[in-house]
Structures are given as C-alpha cells and as structure tokens.
C-alpha cells in the first residue's frame, strides 16, 4: 500500500515534524516502502493469539511506597533549558 503526500503530511503533523518541500518526495517513497515491507505481517495467522507488550511474561508494573524520594533539582535540570525565566520555561505565546 503506497502512501500519498497527504498521508505523509498528516503523519508529520501528528508527529510535530517539519518536512521541507525537498525532503517530502523522499519520505513519501521511503515510508511507502517501509509500510509495504511490514505488510508481510498480515500473512501471519494470529487469531486467538494474545498481543505481547513486554518480552518477559508475567511482569507487572512494580509499585513502591507512597513516600517522598526525590528532592528539588530544578536549577540543575534547567541549566540545559533554551529559555528560562523565574523557573518557568519560556515559549512563544500560546494563548492569544
């Protein structure tokens, strides 16, 4: 199944990725070939097979006691931020 340009534009929007005009045909071709490649999966007989999200069966999300275990490292973690003001991350205006 080949993807169209509109398909790729829609996927790129969902993934919040800008694709240049130049790059677009390359992605349409390569994504189509990948989708065609994985279409092989439809050959497999999987009625009554349980999907597997974790490679080791019987694993559950581990819980821990509801006690504080972390301390404030905001300054250290925000050292990598592109733009910070008063401990807040600065971005272009969101609400008009």
């Amino acid at each position: 199944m080949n993807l169209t340009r509109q398909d790729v534009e829609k996927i790129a929007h969902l993934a919040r990725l800008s694709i240049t005009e130049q790059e677009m045909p390359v992605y349409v071709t390569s994504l189509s070939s990948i989708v065609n490649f994985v279409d092989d999966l439809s050959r497999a007989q999987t009625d009554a097979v349980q999907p597997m999200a974790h490679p080791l069966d019987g694993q559950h999300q581990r819980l821990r006691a509801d006690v504080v275990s972390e301390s404030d490292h905001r300054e250290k973690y925000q050292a990598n931020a592109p733009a910070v003001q008063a401990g807040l991350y600065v971005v272009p205006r969101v609400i008009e």
Partner: protein
Amino acid sequence: MLHNLSIGELGRSLTAGEISSVELARHFLGRIERLNPALNAVITLTADHALNEAAAADRRRAAGDRAPLLGIPLIHKDIFCTDGVRTSCGSRMLDNFVAPYDATVVTRLKDAGAVMLGKANMDEFAMGSSNETSFYGPVKNPWDLSKVPGGSSGGSAAAAAARLAAYTTGTDTGGSIRQPAALTGVTGVKPTYGRVSRFGMIAFASSLDQAGVLARSAADAAIVLQAMAGFDPQDSTSIDTPVPDYSAALDQPLAGLKIGLLREFFEGLEARNSALIHDALKVYRSLGAQTVDVSLPHLPLSVPTYYVVAPAECSSNLSRFDGVRFGYRCKEPRDLLDLYKRSRGEGFGAEVKRRIMTGTYVLSAGYFDAYYLKAQKVRRLITDDFRAAFTQVDLLIGPTTPTPAFAIGAKIDDPITMYLNDIYTIGANLAGLPGLSLPCGFVDGLPMGLQLIGPHFSESKLLNAAHRFQTATDWHHRSPPGYEQ
C-alpha cells in the same frame, strides 16, 4: 603492549605496581589522540575527568581495594547519561545537552572503579546498523576504513577493536551491540531484557532496549557484565533476580551441551560465510557439544515485526524532544507549533524522522489494529518459537550478520536493505533473550561473528560457551592491521 592485555592481566599488573591507573589512562588517551581521528569512534573526550578517576583508583588500590575493574579505562556509548558531560545520543537534538545525572550503568561502573576516557559515537538515537546516521559523521571500521563498523554501537565497537579502551559499553535494541561486534571482530553481549538497568539510558524502544558490553573476550565481558547487571529500583522494567558469578562459570566443560542450529539462519547464507560458521560448529563439537537442527518458523517475520514495534515505541519516546525544556530549539519560532515542528524537524536526522513517522502511522487511528496490535501478536508467536526450541536445546547458534562489513554509503539510501542487516539479531530482542556475538574468522580480511542466543537469564551459559570457544581458537586475539602497536 598494555592495550593488548586482558582486564584480568591489567588488574594483576596494576596490583603488582608495574603500572599505575594514571599511566594506564595516559596510555589509552594517547592511543585515542593518535588513532581516533581516522576512526571517529570517540566524539567526546574526557581526559581530565579520566585522569582524576585514575588517580582516585590508584588511591583506592593503595588502600587495599582489588575490585576487578578498578582503574581500568572504558568508553561509554553516548546514549548513557554522564553527569556533567555532554550526552548527545549522536544527534544534533542533544548536541548541547550536558547530562545532569549518571545513568545506573555509569554509576555501577564508576563504583567498580572504572575510568571513563570519553563517549563513543553512535547512530543517531540508536537507530541504524552502520553508524552512518550520526550527527557527528560516520565511524570507520578499523579493519578497513572504507567500511562501516556496524551500528548503532559503531563507535563502541570500533573503539574496542582498535584498543582505544579496555572495553566499551553499548546498547542493543535490534542487534546494535552484536552486529557491530561481529563486523569489528570483538565480543559483544546483549543481556536478557531487564538484566541491566535502563535508568539514564536514552530510550529508543522501551520493550527492546538493553545495555551491554563490547570487549575483546568473553572473559573480559563477564567481568564487566558482573558490575553492570542487577536489579535497579529506578528502572520499572528491571528484573529482581540474583546475578550469578559469571566469571566462575566460564571454564565449565561443554560436554553434553546441546546447541541448536537455526535452519532459518542458514537459508540463503553465502557459501564463504556459511563455511566459517560450519568451521565454528566443528570446534564446538570437538569441545563436547552436540548440534541439533531446530526451526523457528515465525522467525522470518521478525524484521517486519520489529519495524512496527520499534518505531511505534520510538515515536512515543522521542516525543519528549520538543525544544522546550532541553536540547535543540529552532531559531525565532513563530508560535508553539512552529517551535515543536522546526526544533524536531531540524534537530532530528532523516532516519530518526523516518522511524518516528512510521511509528506514528502504525499507532494512528484506523491502523493500530492492523499494524501495532498485529505486530505484538506476531511477537508472541516468535517468542513461543524460541521457547519451544529451548525445550530441545540449551543454546541457539548461527551467524550474527549475513555478510562482513559493507562499504560506507553502500546501503544508506535504501532503508529496507539496511534493515535486513539485523535479520539474525532482532529475534532475540523481540523475545527478550540474551545474545552474544564472538569473532569466528575472516572473509576477505574482514571479521565475521558467531551468534549465541540463550533462554532468559542464561548469560552464564552463553559466556561459558563463548569462553570455551575462545580457548580453542584465537580469532579474538587478532588486531586490525595498524592497531597492534
């Protein structure tokens, strides 16, 4: 020569006072300075850091500490967060990212006394099989600089092969330790899923990623894995099961070991490559192992399964890179949407974007059942095939890769051809099984690897089988021409 000594030999030399950790660190730093420019294996050098750690190791040794990895230099794949040191994941997206904490793997090796020389180049966000997708340029295979070292742990593999460190760390999601180990003639171990903590290891595909080691022998790998493995409460997928003494099991005789030859691995394998594997099997038989034919009928679907599951998980994991809190931000964003789109569009390379979009597609409304859910079901079929095989045999054996290293640029334009490089390695990731690649010979002067796959938590047996092979052969002692001195 110091760089040709095993970890055990280096430890004895350090203990005997023949060399100090500082001298050892200087020796490897000198090799990196001289040899790395041609290889591009190391992208961040931490020389001062290394010398400080080495001095601290010397003080610990003087106080009586004899930990096996004390004062021994390593290079970490640049996917592991290292406190105060740039952690780029091979991407422009994190080119400016200085990690504010250490990954558990880093902490454990630090506590064991390891001396970090630097960070290794890698395919961007661990996506690739040739180390050609890195923002920092390709890594060259020390056996032939026109060839790829494999990927995504290409820098780690090239550094281990070129003896730029005593060992290196890597990660393996679809073969990214085993395949480059095979193409560069080193021993690479991917442990059982959950054996080694993923805390601080930048996530690609959370149900597949595992940290491991690349070293010059199974004996060396065993020592490193010992320090890396074990339960970590900070990783919610870490398995709480005791870590056996991997080194103690190395010399067990192989009499009675049943090794399964995977029929699907040998179909279509070129004659010279196939001959090397068959020679390796003769060695195993001479060591007392029995070989049995087995079949994993769903294994041929492992590559398409992986290329649904891994991109789906990566599209989720990489959504955190948004130009807001850390990492690359585009210039003069017009609005929030533009900030996200251009930071990500400019910060990520083509293969990463391709996989994010593949993942987004297979998870999107209308396609989820046909692709993602379907892939998870096929994943179970593949896993069940492995489980059935392990009721008949102790380990599975086959080639790690279909061919030796290919030329830089040869496959980068065709994603599917590149994806098929992982055809022998991916199954173990899908089933969460431990796998190991060890050198088994040469084709046209380029190394080939033998792969062993075992049941969950059978690392001892894998390392034992690899070590016994290495006592009967010397492929793992070979150095790339020009790197011996």
